[in-house]
């Protein structure tokens, strides 16, 4: 699962910033420097294995401010499997694992 994910991310990193602008993708697939707007926070779009039910994960994300319309920027990522990620969400900073970020869809801005 991780390797497929990271392969997809590697492929994406080859794209130019201009081509990325306006694209919609999962927060779990972003890389540092990406910024945009959250367009949807879904329940049940991830691959399972969470300690909590999917709608519970969705509610937790919402409670932390991952809501539609919020400004988001990916700031940092961890050393191992580029996980977890740190994001700026409106005026807060939040750290989360990529697997928990799968339900968050963002539309990238132009650089």
């Amino acid at each position: 699962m991780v390797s497929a994910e990271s392969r997809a991310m590697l492929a994406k990193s080859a794209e130019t910033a201009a081509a990325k602008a306006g694209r919609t993708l999962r927060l779990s697939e972003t890389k540092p420097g990406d910024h945009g707007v959250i367009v949807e926070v879904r329940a049940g779009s991830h691959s399972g294995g969470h300690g909590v039910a999917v709608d519970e994960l969705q509610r937790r994300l919402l409670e932390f401010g991952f809501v539609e319309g919020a400004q988001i920027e990916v700031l940092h990522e961890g050393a191992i499997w580029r996980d977890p990620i740190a994001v700026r969400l409106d005026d807060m900073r939040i750290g989360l694992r990529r697997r928990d970020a799968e339900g968050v869809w963002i539309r990238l801005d132009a650089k």
Partner: protein
Amino acid sequence: MTDVPLPTARVALVGNPNSGKTALFNALTGSRQKVANYAGVTVERKEGQIATASGRSLSVLDLPGTYSLRARSPDEVVTRDAVLGKLSGEAPPDVLICVADATNLRLVLRLILELKAVGRPMVLALNMFDIAQRQGLRIDLEGLSREIGCPIVTTVATRKRGIEDLVAQVENLIASGVLSTDNIWREPDAGQIRDAHREAQRILKGNVRAPERPDTFTGKVDSVLLHPFAGLAILFTLLFVMFQAVFTWSKAVGDLMSDGFGALGASLVAHLPAGILTSFLTEGLISGVGSVLVFLPQILVLFFFIILLEDFGYMARAAFLMDRIMGGAGLHGRAFIPLLSSFACAIPGIMSTRVIDNRRDRLTTIMVAPLMTCSARIPVYTLIISAFIPNTKVAGVLSLPGLVMFGLYASGILSALGVSFITRRLLWRGAVEPFLMELPAYKLPDPLNVARSLYLRAQIFITRAGTIILPMMILVWFLSSFPGAPAGATDPAINYSLAGRIGHLLQPVLGPIGFNWQMTVALIPGFAAREVAVAALGTVYAIGNSDAHPGALATTLQHHWSIATGLAFLAWYVFAPQCASTIGVVKRETNSWLWPAIMLIYMTTLAYLAALVVYQVARVCGLG
């Protein structure tokens, strides 16, 4: 408080984590605080008293920080139930003080909306107002107050600014007779959380203008501290410095204390008639309490660093950096701090697992915490290493004893990771709790705040550990002292006691791992605390005052033990649950005997197997 004419009013503090709630609680109540546990749960209950200018007394309850009343951890359940007035054994609060970080209002506004639904009178304390002003943040206090329908007081908890105002506002609410309205709070679903955010966003937009000089410091620092590689390097350097400090700074004080307890015991022996009472006082009580208190300096130094880093805002980053490393073994990033504390002593480590929301994550952390090399193992390791490991250099620079010590630490860490990995695989397959954590803005720690937190930690450790450790110590003393030696006995008295008999009984079982009966007997009092085994070995080998002459004991052991036995003893001590107090704390924290029983069994099994392998391999290598 019977001489106060007005009845005591109950106030509860609620707020997001990192809002400065603890600092505000300290500013409000000063030193009139009491720390205990809530009935039936192991959540810390902090309460303090305020005597107001008008002669009323307020009792302030500090509730665990939360983002929502939809409780997820045991801590948050307490907050929810206390706010709702449903906590058993706890009267509902008359007034709520909601503490907010003025520079970070979005999430707390949503919490405020939830709190409003509960219907209790409330005051909003806009804390960190100094930072808000420095940033040039414009907040329309009147407008905001109108929107959320409750009075607002700006505070700077660390400078004690706005505290009198806050108390006055609380009194106002009580005096004006505002009563609780009906509770219409219900657990929100996803749609309602979205609505609440929209409402919070609207309120924010209408009343708060973006800062003129936003905080750029945090971003800059993060680009170094959260750098994938530099960040980890810095974290490990910090840890290294911390452990250096723990063992060098605190050593002098710890030694002084253990000398002090030794002297106290000796003077009692000199002045009291020999007998059971003296034996109980010196060997049971004083050496028992002493053997725990000598770790206090180390624990305090460790906690000093932890509190400092926590107040600075670094601990969330450490959890972030370590998450994947620990996650590989099935541990939560938040388990980092408890496991770190366990290097000083597993007891505060296990107590601090309360920050972990999820029960499974918390239990896994509790179960592996005693595998971290706590400082009580050091005297045992030092004794055996000095007796059996030649002080030579490896590859010209590294000292062999140092390498062995390092190996023992590493075995502890690796086995902890292994055990949690297996626990995850066997017991709780797959299910991994989400990891979502706010990374707060960096702040310079306030010295007074740090000092106070440290004092509180010490107090909690002493009282909590004391109530568990003392009975255990007395039990172990009893086992090792009764029945006494018969007249004309030649062997040490412990040999005739219950502990001695148990030791002899167990000897055949421990024979295959190279333990003789003296060692087996010494293990029983050693169950009180690991380092007590050193003194116990001194007792069974009849070496008076082994603490003062560790060299003599090491020489004796060299004569009586083979190298294989010495190594097996080391291996045993990496794993063996030789600490009754830890078991007691696990019982307390998990509220059941199941987990301490599992811990006892798995650690003993590991210890036995490790010692067996080490002993047999060493014999094959000709060290028997």
